[in-house]
């Protein structure tokens, strides 16, 4: 087993910032595209979905990290990572839904259909697996998950703004609907390449 990497405060900030901007899950790693295109039509929906994603990412990391290091690795079951993580995340999201429905019905109504949607979201699985492959310790993993969730939030909010502007625009007939949305998504994605290299020199 490789050594876990530990970070000081500066290192954690760098992890957070790079997860939000440089390694943005949607715009740079192209994970979680489905909700990005599907739920970004309106700002309130996009916000609801993003908050649900942040919540689930943090929760999933808090559960899968110990599973990896205290259950899978000691038994040489590292290769079962994907299956076990999917299983655990799915069960977890269902549990969260039940709890929310009982104790916080208003939040349950606000998150609505997005919570079950996240059960099979690849961004959530992606962030948990990436935390392991990067050898982050628990604190760094949680910060990375938070950053990834915030990055998703940022992408969703930005893109819902872009889409609301596109609705008013004069789009050629052949580009209406999904085509122009994909073109706009790629341009937003390209704009995020501008952040590459910023983080390395954040504190120097």
């Amino acid at each position: 087993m490789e050594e876990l990497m530990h970070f000081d405060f500066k290192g954690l900030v760098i992890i957070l910032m790079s997860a939000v901007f440089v390694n943005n899950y949607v715009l740079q790693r192209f994970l979680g595209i489905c909700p990005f295109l599907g739920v970004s039509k309106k700002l309130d929906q996009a916000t609801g979905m993003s908050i649900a994603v942040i919540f689930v990412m943090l929760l999933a990391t808090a559960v899968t990290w110990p599973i990896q290091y205290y259950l899978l690795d000691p038994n040489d079951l590292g290769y079962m990572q994907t299956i076990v993580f999917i299983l655990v995340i799915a069960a977890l999201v269902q549990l969260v839904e039940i709890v929310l429905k009982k104790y916080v019905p208003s939040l349950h109504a606000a998150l609505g259909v997005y919570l079950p949607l996240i059960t099979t979201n690849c961004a959530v699985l992606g962030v948990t697996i990436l935390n392991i492959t990067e050898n982050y310790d628990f604190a760094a993993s949680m910060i990375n998950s938070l950053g990834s969730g915030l990055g998703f939030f940022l992408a969703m909010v930005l893109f819902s703004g872009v889409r609301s502007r596109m609705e008013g625009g004069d789009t050629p007939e052949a580009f209406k609907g999904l085509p122009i949305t994909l073109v706009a998504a790629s341009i937003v994605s390209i704009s995020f390449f501008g952040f590459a290299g910023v983080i390395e020199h954040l504190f120097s």
Partner: protein
Amino acid sequence: MNGIMIAILSVTVIGIICAVMLAVASKIMEVKEDERFPAVRDCLPGANCGACGYAGCDGYARALVEDEGVRTNLCVPGGDAVSRCLSEVLGVEFLDVIEQVAVIKCKGDCSVTSEKMDYEGIESCAAAKLLFGGTGKCSFGCMGLGDCAKICPQSAICIENGIAHVNTRLCTGCGMCVSACPNKLISVMADVEKVLVTCSNTDKGALTRAVCTHGCIGCRKCEKECPTGAVTVVDNLARIDYDKCRDCGHCVEVCVTGCIMNGDFSGIHRAQEE
């Protein structure tokens, strides 16, 4: 071999733990739904046709449970039986459902009109309509490619002699065919009515006559002769106001092209009662 067993076992155990956890949680933290909801939902037919104006049967049931003001006679396909069931479950007064049937306002079959092209495209009215306004000489009429028949959940529509016919004895009046027709020929009306204008052509009489001998030419004879003033000709087409119509059938007798027709439109609900 041993490795596989450990892997299978551990995943199974994790799965069982998750399952037990979820089962326990859903039992302990069960949210009491309105106990009338399942009963209300069971009353409804479950076709999710949307005739009530809500998103499917679940939506209508939820609206009925949560809002006292929602009427119980909105499920037309279910008819009186559903309305009675709902009123019993909810403890409100029984409201009679006005049973409806779909009618096709075109009788331009191959004996009275003809095709203007040899259409060999996709077997769909919506597609054919895009090609020079449809296959028939009359661009208002039924093309007989059966978009309505395909969507009908009761298989109550058949295509014969080049046009669609509704078997009203099977029709529940859900109205799914209404939106399927690109020429908007289909409408739902109360199944107690007896007369129907079987034409939708709004061209001038001479033009209509040239493409279909059955079509309404807008001669206004029915309008003048109707004893209750229920028939009016708007845009060269006779229209019947069923609020005023007494089903005397006089317009059917005077109509020169025979496009106002008598018929028995009693739907499936009436058929079941008999």
